[in-house]
């Protein structure tokens, strides 16, 4: 790893980024989903002219507004952190991040923020149809914002559509479309926005259930349950489908992460899908790292092979295969990747020396090698391995990856059942009498937040040690600044975000208790 790197600095820099991202993600998904629910309600109002739908729209729009206002700009801090704490990384990614983030800033944020004003100030001042179009544009704009951020994040999981320029030490985009239609980006965008729809549906279902328990606003509550039940059921099914799609992509482009999230220490044919399982250390090791095994598990035989390759007999590589290599399965050992990465790094050092000694011809010939497709696929794609000390260092925390993934999946099934039950009881006309279900719905408001954060923990911690998969480990990306300043800002953020969160919850609870205007 980079000389004299202070691990305390690296850990605090990672902790700070994680804290900011976790808090930021508490505000975002409700905006993504509630904007669409409000738009659907307003559409029904405009089509039917029923004033009760207008009252509902305005009530949920108020809660949307509180969340939008408190959450807005919390993501900017992440961009500050890139420039201050992750400067090597920020420079290395070059214009790959610049393009999608610029589009996000100009197009989506402009769309969102302009029409939010019409949404809140425009009642009775603009036509019904123009107001409705504005509400829809806010929903589309908010989700488009998410698209560009997720495209940038997906590049970190699966870097595509670029070439490295040794002269500037930056990656340069060669194909915007490769970046946009990166298979990780497609799955991640659909999975993330549908999880936001699900979260907002559970939010509406939970608050409506509270009104039914308090015997207040029964018509509003039942109509809201109808909308959130249908929207939530469709979203939770979409979450399951896109989650499966994303996991298949992970199996292909991040096989170590995949083996970790399934806690698959040894590769196997007819690999079973674990439904529920408890992990323990197996006593076996790869280098200095302990491997895990199940002390208890319920699995469906062959299903993991079937889901990843479409063939029940297919081989699914485990952590041992991916670290030590498996010649029979054409899996390259990490030691070989380290050698190839080091060759790429030595060539970069050679380029630097040639430029320093003004050996123009030699520098030009090395520069041409960095554009050679054979070198890119054979060496440069393993550039980050040059910074890896021990092969087992490429394995993320297996227990963290496994539990975050499996708890998230179990919650996903729970949400499908909740929305299906809500619609079932609503159509049978018995929902008001099902007190246990109403209370469960109220407390379930928190669960999509938990599953969303688990999903991000899996995506980011499961990618470790990489900040950019195979190209740059976190240790090479961090800026060597004083750990004290990182700790200070960590504490500042913890206080700032906690105050924002408490403010949001208290203003929102007060509005919910007040209820919609009559």
């Amino acid at each position, binding site marked *: *790893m*980079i*000389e004299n790197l202070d691990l305390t600095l690296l850990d605090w820099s990672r902790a700070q980024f994680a804290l900011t991202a976790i808090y930021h993600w508490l505000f975002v998904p409700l905006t993504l989903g509630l904007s669409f629910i409000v738009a659907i309600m307003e559409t029904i109002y405009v089509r039917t002219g029923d004033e009760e739908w207008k009252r509902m729209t305005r009530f949920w729009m*108020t809660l949307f*507004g*509180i969340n939008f*206002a*408190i959450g*807005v*700009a919390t993501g*900017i*801090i992440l961009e*500050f*952190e890139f*420039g*201050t704490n992750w*400067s*090597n990384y*920020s*420079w*290395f990614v070059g214009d790959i991040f610049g393009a999608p983030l610029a589009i996000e800033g100009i197009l989506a944020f402009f769309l969102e923020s302009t029409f939010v*004003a019409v949404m*809140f*100030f*425009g009642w009775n*001042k603009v036509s019904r149809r123009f107001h409705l179009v504005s509400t829809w544009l806010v929903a589309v704009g908010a989700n488009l914002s998410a698209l560009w951020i997720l495209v940038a994040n997906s590049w970190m999981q699966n870097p595509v559509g670029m070439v490295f320029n*040794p*002269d*500037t*030490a*930056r990656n340069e985009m060669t194909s915007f479309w490769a970046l946009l239609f990166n298979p990780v980006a497609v799955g991640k965008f659909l999975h993330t926005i549908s999880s936001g729809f699900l979260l907002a549906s559970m939010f509406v279902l939970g608050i409506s259930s509270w009104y039914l328990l308090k015997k207040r606003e029964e018509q509003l509550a039942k109509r809201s349950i109808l909308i959130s039940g249908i929207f939530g059921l469709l979203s939770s099914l979409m979450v399951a489908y896109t989650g499966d799609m994303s996991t298949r992509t992970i199996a292909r482009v991040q096989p170590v992460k995949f083996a970790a999230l399934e806690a698959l220490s040894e590769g196997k044919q007819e690999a079973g899908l674990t439904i529920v399982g408890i992990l323990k250390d197996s006593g076996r090791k790869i280098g200095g790292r302990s491997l895990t095994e199940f002390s208890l598990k319920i699995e469906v035989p062959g299903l993991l092979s079937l889901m990843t390759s479409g063939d029940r007999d297919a081989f699914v590589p485990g952590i041992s295969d991916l670290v030590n290599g498996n010649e029979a399965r054409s899996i390259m050992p990490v030691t070989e990747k380290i050698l190839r990465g080091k060759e790429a*790094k030595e060539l*970069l*050092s050679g380029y*630097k020396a040639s430029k320093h000694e003004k050996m123009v011809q030699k520098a030009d010939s090395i520069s041409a090698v960095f554009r050679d497709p054979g070198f890119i696929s054979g060496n440069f794609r393993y550039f980050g391995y*040059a*910074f890896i000390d021990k092969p087992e260092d490429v394995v993320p925390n297996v227990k963290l990856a496994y539990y975050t993934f499996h708890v998230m999946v179990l919650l996903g099934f729970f949400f499908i059942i909740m929305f299906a039950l809500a619609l079932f009881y609503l159509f049978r006309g018995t929902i008001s009498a099902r007190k246990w279900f109403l209370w469960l719905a109220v407390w379930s408001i928190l669960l999509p937040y938990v599953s969303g954060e688990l999903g991000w923990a899996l995506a980011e911690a499961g990618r470790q040690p990489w900040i950019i998969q195979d190209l740059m480990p976190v240790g*090479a990306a961090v*800026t060597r*600044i004083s750990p004290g*300043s990182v700790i*200070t*800002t960590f504490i*500042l953020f913890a206080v*700032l975000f906690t105050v*924002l969160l408490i*403010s949001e919850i208290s*203003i929102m609870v*007060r*509005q919910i208790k007040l209820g919609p205007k009559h």
Partner: protein
Amino acid sequence: MTQLRDRLIGFTRFYYDGFRNMSTWGRQVWVIILIKLFIILVILKFLFFRDFLNTRYQSDTERSNFVLNQLTNTR
């Protein structure tokens, strides 16, 4: 010209009326937004989050050389 002026007046009035007739929760969140933006864009940005490469180096060449050194400077 007159049409443009009327539109500008209408646009300004739209926002003026919107803010003037804002509900209690609206005023509260605006206070929070302004305090938050001040903390993020003034205090955090200028005191704690100076861009490392932009503040230390004047040109892109210097920045490239620094990162190149970082990437090749290994044990």
